[in-house]
């Protein structure tokens, strides 16, 4: 993928801070994603990955910091705001309703309706088409409840839901954590396809193998700070692991971090 380093970032975050009581979850985090780029977000447990994406998605309100989307400052106060901007999140624990079927879950909160009356057939049609376009073929019927699906199928539904809404930025939280080898490959291929289609993708993962297979760049968080941005083609797993376990913030206030600075 050819990411223009000088173009306007799809998402740019400056100095994001968030604390829960005395716990400083995020401490002045800078972060950005270019359009068409798969940006991996890695870090140890408690590094602040989940908090960061929840701030982007509007689930948490940041204490301070600036969020720019397509170059404009935005204030995201909830999932609806994020959705309006074109930001979709696929959460680790999936966030599907077990008692609803695939179609109902795909359209949850955004049901096609005429005067509040549901239009089931178009929703069913579009769901089938979306799943087919993503090569999700294991789901026999889009009218079966999610409770009957396997973990991989649920993940497929969750990703498909995020993609279906003409989103610009898709955030995937550990999308392969619960999957087998073949299903993991499918989801990673799907992630790459999203980038190729020009979407910005934030991939959160513990699995550096997955990360190096899909990501264009890698942002490392440690103890609530960003400790480095790596280009996948020019770095090694070794370097990323070191940053995860022992990285220190390299940026000076007002200057871009060294890893990102133009040579």
């Amino acid at each position, binding site marked *: 993928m050819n990411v223009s380093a000088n173009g306007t970032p799809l998402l740019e975050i400056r100095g994001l801070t968030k604390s829960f009581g005395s716990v400083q979850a995020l401490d002045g985090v800078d972060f950005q994603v270019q359009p068409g780029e798969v940006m991996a977000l890695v870090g140890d447990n408690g590094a602040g990955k989940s908090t960061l994406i929840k701030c982007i998605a509007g689930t948490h309100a940041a204490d301070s910091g600036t969020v720019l989307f397509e170059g404009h400052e935005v204030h995201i106060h909830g999932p609806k705001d994020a959705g309006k901007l074109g930001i979709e999140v696929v959460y680790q624990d999936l966030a599907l309703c077990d*008692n609803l079927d695939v179609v109902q879950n795909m359209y*949850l*909160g955004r049901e096609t309706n005429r005067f509040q009356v549901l239009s*089931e057939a*178009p929703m069913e*049609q579009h769901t089938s088409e979306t799943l087919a376009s993503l090569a999700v073929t294991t789901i026999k019927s889009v009218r079966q409840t999610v409770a*009957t699906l396997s973990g991989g199928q649920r993940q497929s539904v969750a990703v498909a839901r995020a993609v279906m809404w003409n989103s610009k930025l898709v955030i995937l939280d550990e999308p392969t954590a619960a999957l087998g080898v073949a299903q993991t490959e499918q989801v990673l291929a799907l992630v790459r396809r999203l980038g190729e289609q020009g979407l910005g993708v934030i991939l959160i993962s513990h699995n550096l193998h997955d990360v190096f297979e899909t990501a264009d760049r890698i942002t490392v968080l440690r103890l609530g700070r960003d400790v480095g941005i790596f280009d996948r083609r020019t770095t090694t797993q070794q370097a990323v692991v070191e940053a995860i376990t022992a990285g220190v913030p390299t940026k000076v206030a007002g200057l871009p971090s060294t890893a990102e600075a133009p040579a």
Partner: protein
Amino acid sequence: MTTADADVVGPDRPAPLEEEQIPGGFAGLYQRAWLNLRTGNLGPIPIIVGEVLVVIIFGLTATNFFTAVNFVNLITETAGTAMLAYGVVYVLLLGEIDLSIGYVAGIGALIVAELQLPGSSVQMNGILAMLIAVIACAAIGAFQGSIVAFVGVPSFVVTLAGFLIWQGVILNKLEQRGTIIIQDRWINYTDAYIFSQWLGWIIAAFFTALYPISILYKLIVARGTQIAQQNWLLVGVKTLAVAIASFGTVAIANHGKVISTPLGLPLAGVIIVLFFVLLTFLAKWTTFGRHVYAVGGSAEAARRAGISVPRIRVLVFAISGATAGIGGIIFAAQVNSVALTFPPGNLLLNAIASAVIGGVSLFGGRGEVRGALLGALLIGTLQNGLNTLNVSNGWIYIITGLVLLGAVMLDTFARRLQARSGR
């Protein structure tokens, strides 16, 4: 019919397990039924079978049970409980509970009684009084729902407090006066108004037409998509069943005579069917209903999908309050008064039992409005039949309890069977 029938749209379609192989026509209908039976997807069948059994048993044993007059009585007796049970379904769908409905029903009855009181300064038309009462009850429900939604107090506790508070209000109001007589004819009509025979037939035709109209709407919406069409045989069978139920009810009701006055369809029966249709429509056909099921299934998933969970909670408790108010008015109209003994019998528990017998899960997200109607009918028939047999109240409670237990156990077994078959 072609193999495309396998992709029937709508809630009635069986699970996809083996349905690719299900053909259309009679063979398909039979296979569908067999597949559902084998995998424990029984729907309302057990409760309908139970109702039929109860009717047969009492028809054979009780002399005054199998009469048109008693049939009309049964409808009016069941109406109030069914109204409350509808609200219970919505609250249970969220995984919440509303213990206050018995006394909220009492508040509804009290308000209409006060507002229609001849000679009082506020005396008004009964229809207006009923409207105000139902709105007030909805407001009570919304208030309790807001405490659940915004303060985060469990609904059990909030509505238990409501139970005590509204009981207290009724006691305070009626302790001195004992009973308020309701003279307004509009209010009393909610129970006792009898439609003329031909109007009864028209109403039956109206309700029968609703199901085919709903199918027609689905077809219109499905235009231009490749969603497969309905299994027309199934639609036909269901339409026939609805027709038999509506016209049968009117036929029996029209057949009755008290002394020499001919009976007919009671308004109370039309009210419960009307609200059954409205609330089923709300639950199954609207975005609001979809969100109710979603919040009941996973409140967190619903919230992340951008659904305002507190809004849904408040509205559902408002519905619960409103249906309780309507039920309360029907009960008051039955005795043309509101007394300290209101609500009658075990109203709250009967309403919850109706919904649960009707297959509504206490844990949220699963159940249908029709369950409340069928459950209320079963309990109503049971209690009516035992009354005509002159069985003591003690035994009526015991038998009702056993039926509740049996229904829930059957449901649990069916669910286990479904889980095993991967549904």
